[in-house]
């Protein structure tokens, strides 16, 4: 006897879904996949609501991975921001796998959103991502895996930065304790209220040479496996790669304004010192671009400046020209 394909697929999904009988959360279908875990839609029986549960994947469910997932949950729980999914609970399933529970977010991934939205809307989303990442930096956390598929745009315009699985707490290590803050990150004594050290929770890649991240979106120092060089500017590189990816769709870069191109070019500089010092600085330049102001990353020639001012005040300038044309018309009529 052969089963229909849809029945087979359903059975396979049931078999893959972790056992949750008797638990507070009943897991349903998977809604996302991260480097370490799978995110399921789940029902919270105690509160009668839908939530998202991230469970360690079966193929990576060792002790170190469990610690990392728990660490991710702790980092997320401490970063309270509208652009970061709130964590509700953390625990262990019957089969010993660690999970954490978060708000269920419905929406589209950034690359999908960017394919259908006007450029200005896409830029506003990238701006919100910069602000969220800037907030994490102010608390000493570097995301290290920024890419369009880790950005969710909700149905009501909310923008969320997801998958903090390989995030690194940088502002609280030994160097920070010595007062050596890294560029763009909060030092322990600053007003940025950095995260306290996560006792007993190792960093994901303490060993030099370990490479974590996504090719095409990770900074050169990250790709070389140099964790000592990771700071806020590592995420600035990721933000630049996101900006370029969502603006230059399907490899077509025609019609991209030079100041906008200059923003991602600066963010994608191989030398961290040549990048924006922080996500907030990059956000400021994107804001200036959206407001038709000159951006810091681009020295504007006079002709382009005149064009930008004309585009900004196009209607007002045309109205004044109309007024002058009417005056001229009366002069001509009078002459005849």
């Amino acid at each position, binding site marked *: 006897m052969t089963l229909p394909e849809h029945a087979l697929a359903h059975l396979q999904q049931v078999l893959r879904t972790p056992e949750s009988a008797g638990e507070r959360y009943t897991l349903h279908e998977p809604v996302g996949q991260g480097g370490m875990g799978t995110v399921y839609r789940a029902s919270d029986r105690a509160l009668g609501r839908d939530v998202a549960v991230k469970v360690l994947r079966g193929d990576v469910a060792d002790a170190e991975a469990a610690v990392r997932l728990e660490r991710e949950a702790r980092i997320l729980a401490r970063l309270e921001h509208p652009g970061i999914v709130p964590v509700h609970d953390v625990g262990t399933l019957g089969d010993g796998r660690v999970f954490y529970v978060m708000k269920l977010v419905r929406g589209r991934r950034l690359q999908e959103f960017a394919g259908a939205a006007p450029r200005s809307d896409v830029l506003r989303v990238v701006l919100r991502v910069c602000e969220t990442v800037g907030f994490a930096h102010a608390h000493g956390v570097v995301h290290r895996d920024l890419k369009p598929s880790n950005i969710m745009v909700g149905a009501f315009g909310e923008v969320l930065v997801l998958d903090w699985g390989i995030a690194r707490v940088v502002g609280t290590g030994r160097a920070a304790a010595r007062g050596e803050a890294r560029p763009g990150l909060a030092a322990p004594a600053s007003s940025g209220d950095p995260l306290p050290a996560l006792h007993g929770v190792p960093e994901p890649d303490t060993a030099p040479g370990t490479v974590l991240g996504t090719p095409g979106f990770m900074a050169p120092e990250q790709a070389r496996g140099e964790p000592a060089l990771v700071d806020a500017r590592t995420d600035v590189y990721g933000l630049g790669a996101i900006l370029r990816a969502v603006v230059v769709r399907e490899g077509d870069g025609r019609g991209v304004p030079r100041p906008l191109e200059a923003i991602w070019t600066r963010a994608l500089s191989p030398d961290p010192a040549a990048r924006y010092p922080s996500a907030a600085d990059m956000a400021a330049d994107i804001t200036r671009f959206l407001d038709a102001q000159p951006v810091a990353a681009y020295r504007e020639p006079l002709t382009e400046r005149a064009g930008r001012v004309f585009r900004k005040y196009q*209607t007002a300038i045309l*109205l004044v020209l109309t*007024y002058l044309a009417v005056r*001229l018309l009366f*002069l001509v009529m*009078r002459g005849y």
Partner: protein
Amino acid sequence: MNKPVLGLLLGGALGALDGLTALISAPEVKPEIMSIVIGSTAKGLVAGVLIGFVARKLNNLAAGIVLGIVIAALLALPIALHADPVTGKAYFWEIMIPGSIVGLIVGYATQKFGRPAVARP
């Protein structure tokens, strides 16, 4: 800058300019240019502040522009209906059309720019 102040300044400036351009469209009025500029500026100031107050109450670009034209045209009308005392000529359209365009510009500017009114508790 709030919208009535923006309207006042823009209306005054464009009104003065409007008065001065009479030298281009009707050079024979040169002896009276001072009084024309003063009158036109005063008209621009009054029209500007009225249009600014309208813009503060009404957030609608099309309606703001139409009201700007109407207010400026109404203020220009008594002047346009009078013949020039020196030359004896009437400059109806020469006054009405540019004056209305000034109202259009101020109506547009006060809708697009300037700080809107803040709701008080």
